[in-house]
């Protein structure tokens, strides 16, 4: 049975509409990441599922049962079986780690065993007696996860879960969290504005955009990155340059020469080109390096080309002013405006 289904969800705060006609589902054991810019309605979507906001339109089903329907709350938050990991964890500071995890299962006769198992799962068995203030950010994150998992929820919601962690920790913890959730077999809805988190952790990515926010694309991380449907999706899922061209089947003619397409098209098209798909060949040509940012293993170049100014990655680091030519490697997606 589908763990979470959202149907034509819409909401407004006063006169400001923030969400419109959003529909998708999350299957048990899978993770869907909702990706969008700030103010794109991601948090409203998440809070609607949790039961903290009653959306004005649409329906939400948890394990097949409707929990909210066209502005009417059918099941309150405390009975939805939807766990949530908050951005700042929201741990109960006056309780120990054990008491925090136990909070949602206080009537369960086997709670001691369950808490032990969960703390072992998140690797915090030794810290059960500590208070949240005595833990590091990563440890607090894991307590929040164990607490949310304790009542065996149908769905877990993760609200910008790695926003408060440093880069090294977020990469490590991200993998850990994904593994824990997969081991628990729970459906996960992750809300983030960080495309790296969305692409690396989710099985599918739901991209929100526009005003009011709509679902622009729902697909695998590889698909939304390599085959974005629109300019907005392409920009939200990674750095991108846009090339104008004329498509004839699987190839489009562009100012940089012929470019392979991910899907056959005809007529005028806009191609989304990722930085790693562009190559700069120093020597003869009408292109010229405008600026260079050095990142160690690679450099990022801004290059003036016959197709306009483009951003690209390069293994070597040609100096600004270097002349050459630019070509596109691999297939590009034709995107709608």
């Amino acid at each position: 049975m589908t763990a979470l289904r959202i149907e034509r969800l819409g909401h407004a705060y006063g006169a400001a509409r923030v969400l419109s006609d959003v529909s998708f589902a999350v299957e048990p054991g899978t993770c869907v990441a909702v990706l969008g810019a700030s103010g794109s309605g991601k948090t409203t979507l998440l809070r609607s599922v949790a039961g903290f906001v009653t959306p004005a339109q649409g329906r939400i089903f948890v394990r097949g049962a409707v929990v909210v329907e066209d502005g009417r709350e059918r099941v309150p938050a405390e009975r939805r079986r939807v766990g949530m990991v908050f951005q700042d964890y929201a741990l109960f500071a006056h309780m120990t780690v054990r008491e925090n995890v136990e909070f949602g299962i206080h009537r369960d006769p086997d709670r001691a065993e369950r808490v032990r198992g969960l703390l072992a799962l998140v690797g915090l068995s030794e810290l059960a007696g500590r208070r949240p203030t005595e833990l590091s950010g990563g440890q607090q994150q894991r307590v929040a996860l164990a607490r949310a998992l304790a009542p065996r929820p149908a769905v877990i919601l993760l609200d910008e879960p790695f926003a408060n962690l440093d880069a090294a920790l977020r990469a490590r913890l991200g993998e850990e969290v994904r593994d824990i959730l997969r081991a628990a077999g729970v459906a996960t809805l992750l809300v983030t504005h960080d495309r790296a988190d969305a692409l690396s952790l989710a099985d599918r990515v739901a991209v929100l955009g526009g005003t009011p926010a709509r679902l622009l694309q729902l697909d695998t991380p590889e698909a939304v990155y390599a085959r974005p449907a629109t300019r907005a999706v392409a920009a939200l899922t990674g750095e991108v340059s846009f090339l104008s061209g004329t498509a004839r089947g699987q190839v489009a003619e562009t100012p940089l020469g012929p470019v392979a397409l991910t899907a056959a098209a005809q007529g005028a098209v806009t191609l989304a080109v990722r930085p790693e798909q562009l190559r700069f060949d120093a020597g003869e040509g009408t292109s010229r390096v405008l600026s260079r940012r050095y990142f160690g293993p690679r450099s990022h170049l801004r290059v003036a080309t016959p197709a306009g100014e483009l951003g690209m990655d390069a293994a070597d680091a040609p100096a600004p002013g270097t002349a050459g030519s630019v070509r596109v490697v691999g297939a590009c997606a034709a995107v709608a405006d």
Partner: protein
Amino acid sequence: MSRALLRALAAAVVGLAVLPVLGLALGWFRPPGLLAPPPVTLDRVLPLAGKTLALAACVSALSLALGTWLGWMEQRARYRGVRLLALFSMLPMAVPSYLLATVLREVFAPGGWFGAPLGLTGRFTGFWPSVLALTIGCTPYVQLLVGAALRRFPEAQEEAARSLGAGPWRRFAQVVAPHLRPTWAFALVLVAVYVVSDFGAVAVLDCEVLTWALYKARSGRDAVLLGFGIMAMVLPILVAVRLVEGRLEHAPGASNERSGTRRAPRRSALALTYGLHAVMIGLGFALPVAALTAWTLRGVVHGASFVAIGASVRDTLLFAAAGAVVTVLLALAPAWSNGRRRDRTARLLEHGAYVASGLPGVLVAFGLLQLLLALRRTSPDLPWQALERAGLLLMLGYALRYLATGYAAIKPAVLRLDPRQEESARSLGAGRFRRFLRLSLPGLAPGLAAAFALVFLALLKELPITLLLTPIGSTTLAFRVFDAQREGSLPDVGLAGLVLLTLALGVKLALQRWRTHA
């Protein structure tokens, strides 16, 4: 001025608090007058202390329960008029306790507005009427504190508890209440010290507690014993306030996170809330305004003369303004010294200032009077009486009682002064005086103005110190209300009370607007 000198000055200001205590102690050795003083017995003091404690316990419990409920509803419930009612529920704070007590006593009297329809036969005085008057006065403070604590409490914690299946009572008991505990403790001691120190309500409603008994005794060792009885009761509470306040400042959960969302309450809860608002705002503000207006109009209709109300207004404004200036000037030394240097001595001085200002007004005034009498006995040739006649003793009493109010408003302004600005002025060759005049003073000005306004507001309504230390021949509005209610001259109470309320509300409103725009 060197730091050591400034600190010595600050310590001297805080040390002034010893004067009433010293006066009280010296009063013990006062020779008996023509009439022999009544025998000094604990038998007389202990029942009074017991009644004072009982009054404090009843008022604390009631205002804690009512203030918590109203604070919770104000922050967490969604109902019609919630913001307006929250604003109106603060109005009873502008009504002095003696004015509210007078109105309650008269409207619940046999034949009064409420007394007649309810068929009341006895006088509306004593313990329970005092509980009612003081509860109405204290509940808004608790409501404010609980409301502020709930605003600081992060919404995410309540939502986390909801998502883990906790219903409203469990969320309140296990998640919210632990965070409210320091606030409750603070509110409890604040209300307790207010009740134990209160003079106006218990005097008007003739409730035999320590402060009222002390005022009635006025002289003799019995009075001194009562004074020390009050002090023994108040000082531990004041120390507790300081300790709890320290914990409150460091309580976890204070954050800028979103506070709780509002939910529609059940009908029964809504009815209770509207009912409580009606009682608190109705009895605490609307009724006093209506009664005072009616009494004034009755006086006008019956040709009452309202003798020299203008002089009373002038004296009130004059004494309050002068008292506020003296208090702010005295508070500046400890505020400046402690704001610039945070160490153990600074903390001790701060605690000292707060504890000293917490002593009940009637005790401060009585102690100062005893001190004056002792000085006259010691050096009869010196013009000690001139201190009282010139109003200097009154100013000193005001300053001792409201030192902490001035201090609390000035210290944040001192802390906001940027030491780098002063350093840059020094590097530009500005001397100490010029630096103070051009940099510190403009920076301090809002704090000084706020301190003046707050102390001025408090002094407008102040009763016990005014009653005992006002120079002969002067009459403030508070003095006049108290005198008139004892003589049963309700039209005079009405006019003086209305003028007093208008002044107090005007200053409060101006302060509020200024703070909003600042």
